[in-house]
């Protein structure tokens, strides 16, 4: 019984890494995705083409592979060791890979949301003498948020579970920790990790449902 609480405690500790990776990825990828979406919608053709190629590459290759490349490529190319040698360096490399990957997915969601707003909304703002900035923040933005909430919720829930991929460069997240017990012949800790993910996603689901209800007062 003592064993049980010790093991759960250590799993919880390692789950903290998953949480950190989750929140920091969101923090950077949400705004970066907006920048990328503006890039892919740019009327300056070379920028749009460059952005679309980047999105294609990032969405077209496995996140696990991207984590490995981001971590090892600088050293193999003789650029030195930007990530350092310790656990912090491995975490930073994983975070960079996650941010780039998720920003690309978010950018496509933003783009579909922005382009889905009828042109008449912008035109109505224009004929009322509003500036481009006023039109974006006062008219378009709220409608975009309402539209993209369900696909964003989907993507963010996927992110929760993807954080376990960070183990590929030895970030000691919860599943990696649990497998240490598997190696010792104890299987239940690995199975129990599901509960951690389920609880986390459960809370997120409640949060997104609440947000969707909040925006139910109008139809767009």
């Amino acid at each position, binding site marked *: 019984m003592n064993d049980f609480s010790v093991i759960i405690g250590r799993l919880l500790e390692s789950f903290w890494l998953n949480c950190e990776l989750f929140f920091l990825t969101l923090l950077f990828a949400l705004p970066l995705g907006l920048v990328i979406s503006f890039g892919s919608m740019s009327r300056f053709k070379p920028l749009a083409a460059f952005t679309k190629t980047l999105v294609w590459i990032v969405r077209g290759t496995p996140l696990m592979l991207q984590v490995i490349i981001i971590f090892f490529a600088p050293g193999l190319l003789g650029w030195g060791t930007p990530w350092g040698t310790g656990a912090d360096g491995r975490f930073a490399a994983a975070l960079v890979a996650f941010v780039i990957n998720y920003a690309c997915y978010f950018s496509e969601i933003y783009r579909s949301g922005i382009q889905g707003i*009828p042109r*008449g*909304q912008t*035109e*109505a*703002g*224009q*004929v*009322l*003498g*509003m*500036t481009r900035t*006023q039109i974006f923040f*006062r*008219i378009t933005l*709220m*409608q975009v948020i*309402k539209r993209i909430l369900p696909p964003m919720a989907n993507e963010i829930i996927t992110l929760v579970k993807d954080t376990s991929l960070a183990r590929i460069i030895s970030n000691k997240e919860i599943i990696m920790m649990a497998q240490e017990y598997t190696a010792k012949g104890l299987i239940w800790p690995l199975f129990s990790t599901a509960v951690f993910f389920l609880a986390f996603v459960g809370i997120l689901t409640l949060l997104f449902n609440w947000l969707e209800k909040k925006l139910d*007062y*109008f*139809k*767009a």
Partner: protein
Amino acid sequence: MAILEVEHIFKRFGDTEVLKGITFSLEQGQALAIIGSSGSGKTTLLRCLNFLEKPDAGIIRVGGNVLLDTSDPTTQQEAQIRKKRLHFGLVFQSFNLFPQYTVLKNITLASELLAKEQADRKAGAGKAALQQIEAEAYTLLEQMGLTEKARSYPHQLSGGQQQRVAIARALALHPSILCFDEPTSALDPELTGEVLRVIRSLAAKKTTMVIVTHEMAFARDVADHVIFMDDGVIVEAGRPEDVISNPREERTRQFLQRFSKEAAGGQGGWDGGDF
């Protein structure tokens, strides 16, 4: 003096020339109806007046001031275009109300933003100005018969009610000329009456208006002038009793005949229409 003068407007989209030299003028306090089949360039003309499209050539004057002269680049600066739009109001076929705002906020939003910009420059103003904007909005809502809907959201209203809110929203900025782009075409037939009644009351108050419409009986009754457009040119212009009831041009006659046939087969329109 003519409040609106439009000279030799040309506009093409790719290979299609949509407007081929449109010239007309409009006196203060008069209503102009533009009729014609779809694809004749009516809506494009209206969008040029509101600076939603940029004509390839032509001159637009309001109250004697040149708003746009395609041969003079100083009249085409982006920053000024925004101010120039305020000479015109535009009521869209599909209303285009802002769904996340109440009816009241739809009407006051643009005025509030303008008032804030001016307040930033002068400092002061502020609350009193905002209260006045709201009071004016309520007056407009009363005119539209929608006072009790001030706190509703657009999706809670019928199409006819939404279009009346859109008219109030356009009027709130006191445009010199109010434009309508087929204001009843997106409405169920039984809802057109309430919108046409509002436009009629505006005509009675001598509001300067340009109305693109398919409601012939309405155009004949309300407009001081009628323009019939076909294939990017003005085929016939004049008083409604001439253009609609006794057209001189063969093309106008054909259009009206085709139109009355369709109207007789469908609902409302030519002779019907209760408003």
